[in-house]
């Protein structure tokens, strides 16, 4: 019997309509755990570097994590992996909600699609019964609407549905996959789903997930719950409200948006409005939020309430999480009422709430600059909000200028030319970033932005405070119950970190300390993404209930695999290096590891090069960001090194 996992994947060939239940190799669980770890292995084995994202042979993997479906709090993430049409690297996106545990109860760890269906279909997985069903009646339907229709059609409200909207059907590069209160939004995974002709995947499962050492495991789960309770009662002092507690930033709960509205950029990640927030705005926005917010909700088996049911009078209900509340609002220089309204349409269309508003603001900037013309916007209303609705409709339908913009700011700028590239200024590796522009370079953040394989800072950062505490007393106070640190040295880094002077940004934390801190932050994310545990309870917030000290015991008692901290670190290193190796094979190099030019006003080119040098060295990669043969062999990835040698990516006998 397999513990923690089911030991079976579902392989679905959409071209031939073939469905197979395939037993997986337990050795791979020992090497990579599951989730993102084993997804990378599958993609490495099956996807040669020249494979196009819209090739029928580009696999689309929906994976649960190793702990999904067990009683571990917050283990509910679905990890979607494929080749991203936007970055042409491994597309990596995840969602919470209820889908992954349901898949486990149906008896599968992953669903792996290949091929393309000639007609639009949806897949219905009900324990051992798997059907590919006609979805022609769902064509053009919204993502939330589709989920509701499928539940009605199959007469079971407990079915979990992951669906795309119009954007996915039309292969918009920012198309999301929507599910529960969550979505896999980044890097165009919805476009690949649409390209394969899959409108939705509906899952219902009624089988058991077994645990190897039940009493021990449930004891650890109880400790996690106890710690969550403690943290809820003791918010971290001295940091901004949204970073005090657990979960993803509590955007649905809090009303105070002074920090975001005055520190994040408006429009096309351009304008900082330092005096935006005042009593009047606060009052109005509070009223708006209280009116439309019906209930605070969570994902599967998690006491947090990071999402909300949003019912704006006159339009249909949807669910929202986190920061989408402000992305449209700020891109359009509008207000929260507009934000909640347009997000409803955007959710039904199924688009990424980070990239899409930026694409629209980018387009209107190009129009103002005369690079796009009135002819491109024929029929566009003149009022500020109206024009955003209009453009959103064009993008998801790929009509007129919308067809070009649907590829994201990077590719759109290439196509438009005439200097449009200058306006696609907020990208890393062709992907739109949070509209954050800061003054002084923070070395830790420089490294995370530059080198992150996920190309999305919220999936890389966490654990270590974003800025120093002003007083020694505050630092001591923070350190005294900081049990999550993998090593005591991190406390010293924080204790010595000053706001100003010699021991402040950008030269402190020092290069080596920065590399250490980034490694810890990355480690927790990579472990979470293999286990399917939400970053909101582990890698993202300060002082989370899951950490490097309790994870080995949880994994071991759930699965029966022998595991200690050293062993888990080794798996992290393997998974992180493997993902890098996959992207290296697709052409990723040091030259691509660049945060946006204007991310910080004060840049330090020499220091930045040193940071990259040190980071690569620490990871066991060469100076171009390529894992060395020695490193790969140490991580049981000798076959990757061989492949690199065969392709001339590394040369025999050299690094």
């Amino acid at each position, binding site marked *: 019997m397999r513990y923690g996992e089911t030991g079976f994947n579902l392989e679905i060939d959409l071209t031939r309509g073939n469905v197979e239940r395939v037993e997986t190799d337990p050795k791979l669980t020992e090497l990579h755990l599951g989730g993102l770890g084993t997804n990378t292995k599958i993609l490495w084995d099956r996807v040669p570097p020249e494979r196009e994202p819209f090739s029928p042979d580009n696999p689309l993997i929906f994976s649960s994590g190793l702990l999904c479906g*067990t009683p571990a709090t917050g283990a509910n993430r679905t990890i979607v992996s494929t080749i991203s049409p936007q970055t042409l690297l491994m597309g990596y996106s995840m969602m919470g909600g209820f889908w992954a545990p349901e898949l486990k109860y149906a008896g599968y760890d992953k669903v792996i699609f290949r091929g393309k269906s000639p007609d639009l279909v949806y897949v219905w997985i009900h324990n051992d019964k798997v059907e590919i069903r006609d979805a022609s009646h769902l064509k053009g339907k919204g993502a939330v609407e589709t989920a509701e229709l499928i539940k009605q059609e199959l007469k079971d409200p407990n079915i979990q549905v992951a669906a795309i909207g119009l954007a996915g059907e039309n292969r918009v590069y920012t198309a999301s996959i929507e599910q529960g209160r969550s979505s896999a939004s980044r890097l165009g995974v919805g476009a690949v789903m649409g390209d394969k002709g899959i409108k939705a995947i509906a899952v219902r*499962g009624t089988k058991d997930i077994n645990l190897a050492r039940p009493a021990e495991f449930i004891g650890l789960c109880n400790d996690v719950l106890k710690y969550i309770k403690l943290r809820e009662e003791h918010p971290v002092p001295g940091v901004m409200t949204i970073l005090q507690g657990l979960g993803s930033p509590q955007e649905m709960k809090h009303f105070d948006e002074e920090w975001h509205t005055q520190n994040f950029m408006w429009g096309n990640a351009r304008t900082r409005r330092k005096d935006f927030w005042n009593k009047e705005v606060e009052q109005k926005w509070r009223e708006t939020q209280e009116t439309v917010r019906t209930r605070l909700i969570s994902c599967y088996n998690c006491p947090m309430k990071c999402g909300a*049911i949003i019912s704006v009078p006159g339009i249909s209900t949807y669910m929202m999480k986190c920061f989408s509340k402000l992305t449209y609002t700020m891109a359009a220089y509008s207000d929260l009422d507009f934000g909640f309204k347009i997000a409803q349409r955007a959710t039904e269309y199924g688009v990424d709430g980070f990239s899409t508003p930026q694409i629209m603001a980018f387009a209107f900037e190009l129009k103002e600059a005369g690079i796009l013309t009135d002819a491109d916007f024929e029929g566009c209303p003149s009022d500020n909000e109206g024009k955003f609705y209009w453009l959103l409709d064009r993008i998801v339908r790929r009509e007129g200028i919308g067809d070009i913009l649907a590829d994201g700011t990077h590719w759109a700028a290439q196509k438009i030319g005439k200097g449009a590239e200058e306006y696609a200024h907020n990208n890393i590796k062709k992907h739109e970033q949070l509209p954050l522009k800061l003054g002084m370079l923070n070395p830790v953040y420089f490294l995370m932005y530059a080198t992150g394989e996920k190309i999305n800072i919220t999936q890389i950062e966490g654990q270590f405070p974003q800025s120093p505490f002003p007083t020694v007393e505050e630092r001591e106070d923070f350190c005294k119950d900081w049990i999550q640190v993998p090593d005591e040295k991190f406390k010293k880094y924080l204790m010595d970190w000053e706001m100003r002077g010699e021991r402040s940004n950008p030269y402190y934390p020092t290069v080596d300390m920065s590399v250490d801190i980034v490694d810890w932050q990355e480690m927790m994310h990579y472990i979470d993404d293999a286990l399917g545990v939400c970053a909101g309870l582990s890698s993202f917030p300060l002082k989370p209930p899951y950490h490097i000290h309790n994870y080995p015991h949880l994994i071991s008692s759930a699965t029966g695999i022998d595991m200690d901290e050293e062993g888990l670190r080794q798996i992290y290193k393997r998974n992180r290096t493997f993902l890098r190796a996959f992207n290296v094979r697709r052409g990723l190099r040091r030259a691509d590891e660049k945060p946006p030019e204007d991310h910080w006003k004060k840049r330090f080119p020499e220091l930045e090069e040193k940071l990259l040098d040190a980071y690569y060295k620490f990871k066991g990669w060469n100076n171009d960001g390529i894992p060395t043969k020695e490193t790969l062999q140490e991580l049981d990835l000798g076959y990757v090194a061989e492949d690199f040698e065969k392709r001339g990516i590394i040369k025999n006998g050299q690094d």
Partner: protein
Amino acid sequence: MAKIKKKIKTIKVDLDKCNGCRACEVICSAFHANPKYSSNNPERSRIRMVRHPIKDVYVPLYAGEYTPAECMGRDKYVIDGKEYDECGFCRAACPSRTLFHEPDSGLPLKCDMCEDDPPQEKPLCVQWCLNDALIYEEREEEVEEEEKQEDIDLALESLVDKYGMQKLMDTVARRSQKSETST
């Protein structure tokens, strides 16, 4: 007739506080697994979330009595303008639905307030509900101790239903003889 003290156990369910996470289902099914916590499967849980997010319907529902037959009709509640499912508040393990039946055997499930071995101080679903949507309350009531004739009649009737009058009478005769010889 003698008075006896009876412990009344109540779980107060506050629908407004429920975030719909289903942790109650998780811990219930794990606790009732054999060996304890060895597996997890919400379908075996004796508490289920009746959950329609878009309609804002969030009802944690406890497994009550098994019933061999459907009701004569079905009820549908509308509260504060919100329409709940048909039978949406009914706790019965009933042949008209799969709810509260073991997924493999079809046998009915019933909440035991976690009196199963080892008995829990509070039902575990309550302990795992950090949002206080489930609140456990206990009180003692004094009640008359009596054996109601209709209870005995009812019990007998169902035995007759199942085994027939003749078999039942034979059994009673055999057993009463046994108890005579033993005394």
